């Protein structure tokens, strides 16, 4: 049975192979931080260590029916450990852009999926970006958060973080100063990440717990913007006890962001290939 003649097959092979070779010569490429942030650094007498503040990151989406489960465990953790938990809801659910026009997906949250995951199921919870299951995966199911938090909040931190904000409501310009102070020496590569979150956003959410779409769902801790690169800016000096860094950021808030409900979050974390662990985290309201 000859379906193809020799000549036709030859052409097909050539066309196929050439298509294979050159079908995608251009590529967008991964996110690389190609800018540097100025900083001031010096050594001082090490101060006493702050209590550990835990960062919970929640990969979520408005079109994700199970994602409100993640919102619930985050709210529980904040209630159970006041002042010791900082949360970021990172919208990167693939269907969100098709679901709501004013979606909360950010390019940085999408990049974080590559940096911390990639995950294949939402919601995905990241607690201090640690691998608690020793399975090579950083993400956890919502039902595991409570037990992990009970241990995580008792740990100490080798870094103190301070945030000082100045906000002009007229110009909507935010000036943020982040001070990082090492209280113990750290040998791993460390980055500082600084982001803006907004709470109290009213927008639709598909919620299996509510039996379908909730039009006026209140979204809290929504990641709006990283003031650093999404994977942080390098803390490049030898990070001995007493090492201090001072970073300053200026950003004009868009009109549709409610500054009254916004927070600056800063956290220091490992940036080694085998560890992204968050060493310390801090949060301060934009107007404070």
């Amino acid at each position: 049975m000859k379906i193809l003649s020799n000549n036709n097959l030859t052409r097909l092979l050539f066309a196929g192979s050439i298509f294979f070779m050159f079908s995608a010569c251009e590529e967008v490429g991964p996110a690389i931080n190609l800018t540097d942030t100025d900083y001031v650094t010096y050594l001082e007498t090490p101060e006493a260590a702050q209590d550990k503040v835990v960062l919970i990151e929640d990969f979520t989406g408005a079109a994700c029916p199970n994602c409100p489960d993640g919102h619930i465990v985050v709210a529980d953790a904040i209630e159970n450990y006041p002042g010791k938990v900082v949360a970021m809801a990172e919208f990167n659910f693939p269907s969100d852009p098709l679901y709501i026009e004013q979606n909360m997906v950010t390019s940085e949250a999408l990049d974080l999926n590559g940096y911390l995951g990639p995950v294949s199921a939402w919601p995905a919870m990241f607690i201090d970006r640690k691998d608690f299951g020793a399975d090579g995966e950083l993400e956890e199911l919502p039902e595991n958060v409570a037990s992990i938090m009970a241990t995580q909040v008792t740990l100490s931190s080798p870094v103190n973080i301070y945030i000082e904000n100045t906000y002009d409501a007229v110009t909507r310009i935010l000036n943020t100063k982040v001070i990082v102070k090492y209280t113990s020496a750290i040998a791993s590569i460390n980055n500082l990440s600084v982001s803006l979150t907004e709470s109290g956003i009213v927008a639709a959410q598909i919620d299996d717990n509510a039996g379908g779409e909730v039009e006026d769902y209140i979204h809290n801790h929504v990641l709006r913007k990283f003031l650093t690169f999404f994977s942080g800016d390098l803390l490049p000096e030898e990070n001995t006890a007493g090492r201090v860094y001072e970073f300053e950021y200026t950003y004009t808030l868009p009109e549709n962001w409610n500054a009254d409900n916004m927070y600056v979050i800063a956290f220091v974390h490992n940036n080694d290939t085998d560890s992204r662990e968050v060493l310390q985290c801090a949060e301060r309201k934009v107007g404070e």
Partner: protein
Amino acid sequence: MRKILGVLLLVFCLSGAYGQGSFSGDLQLNTEFYQSDSSIGATGTPHYDDLLSSAYGWLSTFYRNDQYGIEAGVRFDMFNNSNLHDPGIPYTDAGIGRWYISKKIDALRITGGHIYEQFGTGIVYWSYEERPLGIDNALYGLEIEYALNENWTVKVLGGQMKNLFSRFDPVLKGGTVEGFIPTKNQQITVAPGLSFINRTLDQDNMNIIVGQINSYELEDRFVPKYNMYAGSIFNTLTIKDFSWYAEYALKSHEAINDISGQLVDENGSVIYTSLSYSTSKIGNGFGVTGQLRIVDNWVMRTSPNETLLDGFIDYLPSLTKQNSLRLTARYQAVAQQLGEFAYQINATFTPKKGYNFNANFSKITNDSLDLFQEIIVDFEMRKPNYKLLLGGQLINYNQEVFENEPDRPIVKTITPFAELTYKFSRKKSMRVELQYQNCKQDFGSWVYGLVEYNIAPKWSFALSDMWNYEPLRTEEALHYYSVFTGYTHKSSRFTLNYVKQIAGIVCTGGVCRFEPAFSGLKAGMITTF
């Protein structure tokens, strides 16, 4: 895997039912027993401390039916605390190491499974197996081969590179067109070719790369590429007694590790050419071959996260003479992927039957740095009842670069050697090797002797000793001796070898790696059926 075996079994059975085919195979089995010897550095690893033995083997079976154009094969691999892949680190696993099935349909051949393939000389792509070094770089995927006519062939393939019993995550696709242009004058022939390969990184590998790059100083950061494209154009031109091969290969820029292990964004190239002349008009035969290779950042791996001999998709062997005698093979030049300028000239002259002169000169440099130089000459005389080989070798070897040993001087050796094979009768023969290596660096000077007695076709016995009689790294003048017995029965060969082996670069087929010292007993078996 059960499904795969089922399909192959079905092919064997159906083919057996419908046509006559041939079934063949082979088994290679090696066992090593470790005996700690701290004087030569053979100690302190799990094998010497606790495990005491290791074994590894391959059982290959093939079925071929020319009537239906079907070919299939399956190979069972076993590694029990194997020292093969990463010397010093035991590895244990077993399973199907290779399977493939191939069907020919007129001028088209389709193959699926683990595929060994080569484009050109292998500079752009060569999936191959080198068991002594633990290399099995098969492609797990599909290949289509089509004969355009009797002189031109196109091959297209795609898949992932094998990684022991799993696969490296990046994917590959590529193709080659190779041909032969006959001329009316049969004394001139042209054999051109063209090949391409495209490797696409997976997200996990890219995440590691991105994490590394983002930790660098700003001026060292760059946006890495998921895709690497490489291609080469090559041709063999033969005019009477001359043959000229030339290949030029280019690859697109991607993240590769520089000499310090930092990722850099570099493109690469290789220029390789060889010119040979051979004639029977001078004496009883004369031949000369010159080879030149210029390598610039030619690192072809599945990803820059792979190290040592892992994840290679090409074949870039050493461009120096592959010596077989023990001391002449002591210092060998590993191909320098990041950059080398290498050339060698080899001449062979046979003034009359039974007499043969060989001379070889090779040199490798990198920028202004001398890496390797070898001059080796030998004379071989063959008579009905004996064969005599006499020769000498001079080597300059950059140990700092090849063995990554800082502050080591250039190793300079002078090595005269002799080998005599004497036939007592049609079945009984003796082979004697004598080598001396004068060296004022590294381990110092050596003497090597070997006596081998063969009773054809079954028995072989050998005693050898490599004596570090002027030691520079040890207080004592150590002996590295070996006692060997081999027995052949029909198509099976069994060997036993008690060995003291010095640490050093070991090369097979021009591919090299560092191996630690060995002390103990090696038992081996090879059989074909």
